[in-house]
């Protein structure tokens, strides 16, 4: 229990202290703030790791009048996400150490990162629907600060637009989700996620399930994001500083899909089953839409944002299938996208700082010629992004397609199979845009304008992520074995 509280208390205290220091008359210097933040993230990561191993459970009375309990726990589904969050929180701090933030007090910057980590960890630890919602919302404002104050300052209107969009979209999504959660809690009489999952929607009418599931799905779809609710993502990524982009893509989007599993699929199987075909169609539309946009997009950060929409489409497809394979695929693809998008955003963020912009139409020095390390990381990143078997991106996509080809008995078989065929075309488009990027910036004989290669903190972060892409690609069992038992518990009930 102490492990759990420590894992949450450290980022809370460190984040508050850093922000207060940033507001004070003599804020911490960038180096000191980085050091403090690094120590805090490392300590948090250690406690998260310990919590994942020890699997503590916290269950205490909190607000009896509202029936809200302080419930936190770790299970197989949340464990990989917790590790991903904690590890990337360390990585963004290390990376920011070698590529410092611009635009405001460094202490506030690091403080916001700590709070984002706090919110994400609390979301994944939470076992009470209301606490889940509260944690979900903690992330919002610090992320807004990161985008609106530390984002790309070349176009202030665009920056205000991007950060505003992010907040408004997300708040709309969370509001719908809150209504859904309240309805769910009201209808089933408990806010405990474990109890909700165990009840398996018993006692809820079909139409009640459908209405609540629809509210929750729309709300969470904004966060994931699912086509056509994705238009906040490209501007947010384009403007956000590297650390913000990484946390946004690798952690925040995952909170959406995680929410779908916990709040919709487990407690409302019938309602989700009714909506799953539509959900799957939108997911596959996102795969094609995002992929095609990448074929002609000329801003590298926007391009990766659109590719995120496509990758999350595969997660949605897996979730919609209603089978164990599909859920396993979705949870794996979730982690895979976290690792790959983190790698790509670290890379592209670094490139944007070197180039001055992320425009692909401008002639650049070939990465393979002037910065072989960045070039190598890029080629691994895009190979993983196009779903190359043997790398981490493959398993989620392949298994999601398999699961949709063989969906749960109550899903429309023909529709799901058509969707698989469309989704596989999306995988082809992914190869097209990945090679397009490689051809534009990786190969070629230009050596001007020269830029420095990655070294120090930046290189170590990239190297660790490249290794993760490879290791998880070769041994997907590391994640799948963790999630298997809890997924089986959920789907046993879905297929019933």
């Amino acid at each position, binding site marked *: 229990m102490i492990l759990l509280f420590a894992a949450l208390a450290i980022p809370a205290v460190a984040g508050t202290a850093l922000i207060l220091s940033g507001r004070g008359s003599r804020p911490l210097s960038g180096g000191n703030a980085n050091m403090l933040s690094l120590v805090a993230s490392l300590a948090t990561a250690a406690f998260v790791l310990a919590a994942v191993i020890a699997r503590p459970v916290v269950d205490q009375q909190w607000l009896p009048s509202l029936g809200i309990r302080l419930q936190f726990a770790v299970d197989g589904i949340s464990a990989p996400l917790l590790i991903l969050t904690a590890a990337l929180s360390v990585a963004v701090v290390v990376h920011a150490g070698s590529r410092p933030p611009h635009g405001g007090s460094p202490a506030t910057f690091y403080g916001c990162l700590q709070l984002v980590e706090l919110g994400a960890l609390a979301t994944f630890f939470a076992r009470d629907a209301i606490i889940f919602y509260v944690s979900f919302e903690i992330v919002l404002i610090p992320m807004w600060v990161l985008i609106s104050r530390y984002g790309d300052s070349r176009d202030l209107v665009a920056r205000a637009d991007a950060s505003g*969009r992010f907040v408004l979209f997300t708040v709309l999504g969370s509001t719908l989700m809150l209504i859904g959660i309240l309805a769910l809690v009201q209808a089933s009489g408990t806010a405990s996620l474990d109890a909700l999952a165990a009840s398996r929607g018993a006692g809820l009418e079909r139409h009640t399930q459908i209405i609540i599931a629809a509210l929750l799905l729309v709300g969470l779809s904004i966060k994931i994001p699912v086509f*056509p609710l994705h*238009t906040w993502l490209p501007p947010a990524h384009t403007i956000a500083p590297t650390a913000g982009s990484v946390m946004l893509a690798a952690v925040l989007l995952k909170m959406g899909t995680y929410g779908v599993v916990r709040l919709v699929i487990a407690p409302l199987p019938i309602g989700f089953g009714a909506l799953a075909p539509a959900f799957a169609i939108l997911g596959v539309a996102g795969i094609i*839409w995002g992929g*095609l*946009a990448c*074929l*002609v*997009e000329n801003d590298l950060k926007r391009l990766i944002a659109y590719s995120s929409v496509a990758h999350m489409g595969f997660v949605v497809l897996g979730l919609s299938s209603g*089978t*164990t*394979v599909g859920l*396993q695929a979705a949870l794996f693809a979730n982690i895979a996208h976290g690792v790959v998008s983190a790698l790509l955003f670290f890379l592209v963020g670094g490139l944007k700082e070197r180039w001055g912009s992320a425009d692909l139409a401008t*002639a650049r020095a*070939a990465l*393979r*010629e002037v910065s072989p390390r960045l070039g*190598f990381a890029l*080629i691994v990143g895009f*190979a993983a992004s*196009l779903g*190359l*078997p*043997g790398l981490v991106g*493959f398993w989620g996509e*392949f*298994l999601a*397609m*398999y699961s949709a*080809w*063989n969906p749960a008995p109550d899903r429309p078989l023909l529709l799901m199979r058509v969707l*698989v*065929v469309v989704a*596989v*075309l999306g*995988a*082809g*488009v992914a*190869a*097209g845009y990945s*090679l*397009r990027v490689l*051809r*534009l910036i*990786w*190969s*070629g*004989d230009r050596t001007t304008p020269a830029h420095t290669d990655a070294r120090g903190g930046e290189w170590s972060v990239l190297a660790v992520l490249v290794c993760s892409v490879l290791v998880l690609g*070769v*041994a*997907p*069992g590391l994640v*799948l*074995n963790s999630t*298997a038992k809890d*997924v*089986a518990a959920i*789907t046993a009930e879905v297929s019933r």
Partner: protein
Amino acid sequence: MSDSVSLSAQVVILAPFVAAILGLLVARNRPAGALISIAGAAVSLVAGAHVLYAIHHGPFSPEVPTVGPLPLGQLKMPLTLLVDELSAIVVVAVAIVGLAVQLFSQWYLHDDDRYGVFVASVSLFLSAMFLVVLSGDLVLTLIGWEVMGWCSYLLIGHNSRKESANKAATKAFLVTRIADLAFVIGLIILASGVSTTSITAVIDGWPDLPAASLTAAFLCLLIGVAGKSAQFPFHDWLPDAMEGPTPASALIHAATMVAAGTFFLARLFPIFVLSDPARLALAMITAVTMVGAAIIAFGQSDLKRMLAYSTLSQIALMLSALAVAPASVGAGPGVLHLLSHAMFKALLFLAIGWLSVLVAGTAAAKMSGGVRYHPQLRLPIAIGLLALAGVPPLVGFVSKESILGAAYDNVTELGSLSGWIVLVSFGVTVVLTAAYCTRAWLVLTHLSPADEAVRRASLAASRTVVDVSLVEIFTEPAPGTVRDSSGTPGQPAAEVEHDHGHAGIFPGARVSIGALAFLSVVGGLIIFTPLVGVEPHLVWGLAASSLLLILVAWLSVRRMAAMNSSGDAADFLGARRIALFDRGFGVDGIYVAVVSPVVRLARIVVTADRDLIDASVRSTVVATRWAGAASERAHTRKPSDYLVWLLLGLLVVGVSGVTLW
């Protein structure tokens, strides 16, 4: 015994994989890179030989674990390897070629600043090929299959400073990848039928399942096979892939990756044979490819590209064996030709690569008279061309005649349409193959320095290698795009020129060519040993008539060449037609026709994303502003107006109170 076989099978795959990773870490250290890459291939060869020996001498367990099964509910994914006679013999053949290529690269790329990365990619490639061959699980096959594609992208684009190499690499990957999309669907169908990805379970289970699904699965798989094995209409990436350094061409585009499709279908042969429509489709694809590619090969002005087209034709031959062989004959003939082709085609590529260094180019004009000036190449090239043409007793003769035997059995036993298609196209291909082999030999042995200059001038125009890449249309062509159209003598068409100061050939490279030549000669006899595990089936009457055809082709091409001052029989076609042949009859145009609508669609998507989807989001902003302004206007700050509103409100409440009572 069984444990050591399992261990060796794992080592076969792991050794080059480890060599690839270590090789990348020491990429800048040339001697270390050479040592690691050669050691990796050598360890695989030894381990593979051990597997081959052991399975013929004692019991062993065919299922070998890898990273362990994955927990996926109803879907079983054991991820095991499958060791048997088929996989063992192919592993050994691949390992021989792989080792030869690694030895040859050490010399061929000795002045290349990216030698370390190159051999690391070759090691990774080898590991992937071994995975495909030893795979006992559809997913492992897919992994090896695609990783090979990625490695071939890296190897073709090895010289990434050169625009044409980048284009060729991109084209190769995209074309094969698009074909692989269908392959993935095919694998999913196969796995869905039996709820497992284990190949043995798939083979055991599918005979009881609906034949229509099986045919659907195999038609999808055939698209993938056609892409990877460069069969019509996906074939055009392979000749362009000659942009890669010659060792890569020898390995990928001759011996291994393009043959993976043959191996995969041979692996699934027990159920492939159940689907007549799929076999007919394969017979038609291969008939078109074997004849078409052989015709195009004859007219190539570049000998390396000629070899590439001959590869298409030969791969089509092996696949056609699988399309027609009756169940009683099995996949043997196709596999035999896979093995023999691996030997003699790798030999030819390495020998031509050697010659290209000596004469500084691969164009026919450059190579003319090459073996006269460099007699050390006379024997290896002669052996390679004779084997390719299928002259006894070389290995190519035995393997080709067993394909012919399979087609003959099909026609006599089953009398199916595919049997006839293959039999006829086989006959045509035999003539054409002998013709282009003769032409190449006559070019290489031609000697008339006086005419050299004249002929060069006439060929200059035809030496253009036009690459219309798929990505060409994604982006505006970069300014200063390098094209090999300078036409000046001394400019090789397909490959970057090596310095004339290139070091003399290393002993290792020489030995590897010698070994391949030796195997191409005695391979014909090895096939008859139990080691290969395939009984060659020769129909002597057919063999005699194909020999007669070869003889006719030889004589007529000689005559054509003699009537031509250049000694190149293809010059009969005229420079303009040769240019057409060099472009492969413009099949590229099909690819462009497929891709440009996609790019157009992509532009529409981007516009719609901004002006339709996001516009509806932005419209909420406008609507909110408008509502705000409207309500602002309603607040006129005149008490009388507010009083009117109040009365109206009272009226509404009153009326609704009365009516809803």
